[in-house]
């Protein structure tokens, strides 16, 4: 269990780290590390791998919005059914159940603001049980999933020192 957690911690920070490197760091064999990662993937403990990309740098001006959604919960299933339905839309990146003044926080990406507006008015608001939505557009990303967007902190140390 401890070993699994250590492996997960390393992968969470750098999904590209090789099983061999993990094995060296944790004093284990490469085979054992591979087997554990395989199992974690099969059991959906590791759900998937993503890259964090600064799309602006390749001239892509995609739009991201965070939408606060108020929902009337259903008997037996609460918010789950509607949340699961929202998850199915490919433009939806994240869905969270929230405490506070609204219920679901939905992160959506699209090519233009219009595209997102259309998604909200035609797809999201029209779902049964969705009471209201408030859409916030992201203007600039500074940090995401541990990574700082603009200039990564460069190494300011002298190249050789005692």
């Amino acid at each position, binding site marked *: 269990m401890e070993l699994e957690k250590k492996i997960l911690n390393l992968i969470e920070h750098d999904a590209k780290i090789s099983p061999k*490197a993990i094995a060296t*760091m944790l004093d284990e064999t490469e085979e054992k590390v591979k087997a554990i990662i395989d199992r974690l993937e099969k059991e959906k403990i590791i759900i998937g791998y993503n890259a964090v990309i600064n799309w602006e740098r390749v001239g892509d001006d995609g739009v991201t919005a965070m939408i606060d959604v108020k929902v009337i919960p259903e008997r037996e299933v609460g918010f789950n059914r509607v949340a699961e339905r929202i998850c199915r839309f490919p433009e939806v990146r994240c869905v969270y159940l929230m405490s506070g003044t609204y219920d679901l926080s939905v992160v959506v990406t699209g090519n233009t603001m219009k595209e997102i507006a259309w998604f909200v008015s035609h797809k999201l608001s029209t779902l049964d049980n969705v009471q209201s939505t408030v859409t916030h557009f992201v203007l600039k990303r500074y940090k995401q999933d541990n990574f700082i967007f603009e200039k990564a*902190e460069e*190494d300011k140390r002298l*190249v*050789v*020192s*005692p």
Partner: protein
Amino acid sequence: MNDMSKYVSRVVKSIPPSGIRKFFDLVSQTEGVVSLGVGEPDYVTPWHIREACFYSLEQGYTMYTSNQGLLELREEIAAYEKRRIGIEYSPAREILVTVGVSEAVDLALRALVEPEDEVLVPEPSYVSYAPGATLTYGKAVPVQTYDVDEYRLRPDVLESCITPKSKVLILSYPNNPTGGIMHRRDLESLVDIIIKNDLIVIADEIYSELTYNGKHVSIASLPGMKDRTVLMNGFSKAFAMTGWRIGYACGHPDIIGAMTKIHQYTVMCAPIMGQKAAIEALRHGQAEMKKMVDNYNYRRKMILSGLREIGLDCFEPRGAFYCFPSIKISGMSSEEFCEKLLLEEQVAVVPGNAFGASGEGFIRCCYAASINNIEEALARMEKFLNRHKK
């Protein structure tokens, strides 16, 4: 330009130029260098510590402190040393806050060493001790340590270097440049010799938090050694605070008092911004420090296995953030190896002889570098070795 060097004091002239400085100039002129030549953490000081300094500036803490340092800081240091090595030092009389361990070393040598006194310096050694001894008109006496002993100081070797003039022994473990440490039994084997020969120990424990698999043992904590030891520690390595210039010395009031006398007339006090930051580090810095140490440990294992894979012999360093492999298979001297490696593959490592003659045949590789840089440096070194292996 006039030659003014005749005005420079003889003792300063007698100190050889630093081997690291020379190599630094060479590296600075090279493009695209991957450096394992650094002697400091690759982390920036944790944010909460930096933030505590901003706050203190906002509050207007921009003045001198007492010569010994802020009492609040000395109290935190006392509590920390109690936790770290189990010794109680009085914040009022036994602790002095200094401008890095660097200043503490200088003060202790000046407070203790008289002309002709001998200072025993286990080698390979951090670069400051021998010049520090020379500047007080004392004499630095190298005491060899060996890679087969994992660079632990051996009692028989120590004893063979002692003369009636021996006064101070430097113990700097975990060690820069080797990464070697002293276990309790290794330290115990020195105590009788130290007491019998009436030596004072300067224990530079700046890397003690960076001890992997096990807990650091301080010579000061062994029976009969507290009064004989001037303990030094600082924030540079463990808390990634090299630029803040804060360290401290703990010891007997007579010695700390003497050091304080020099300190008050030469630097007055350590900078207050750094002292405020150091308080925050000791109060709330444990968790971040632990994370950094865990990461150094990962990288330690990576680089050690990598160096061995490309054919360099290396003992397992158990402290600090250095590996000290032998370059025997290249058939080159340390300097030749480092210069060629830099010119041909743009990798910077430090020649072992910069840390004393006994470092010849070895190089210091610092693994306070990103995993990517470590892997890149190893790949380039492998190419280099394949060309030059004897």
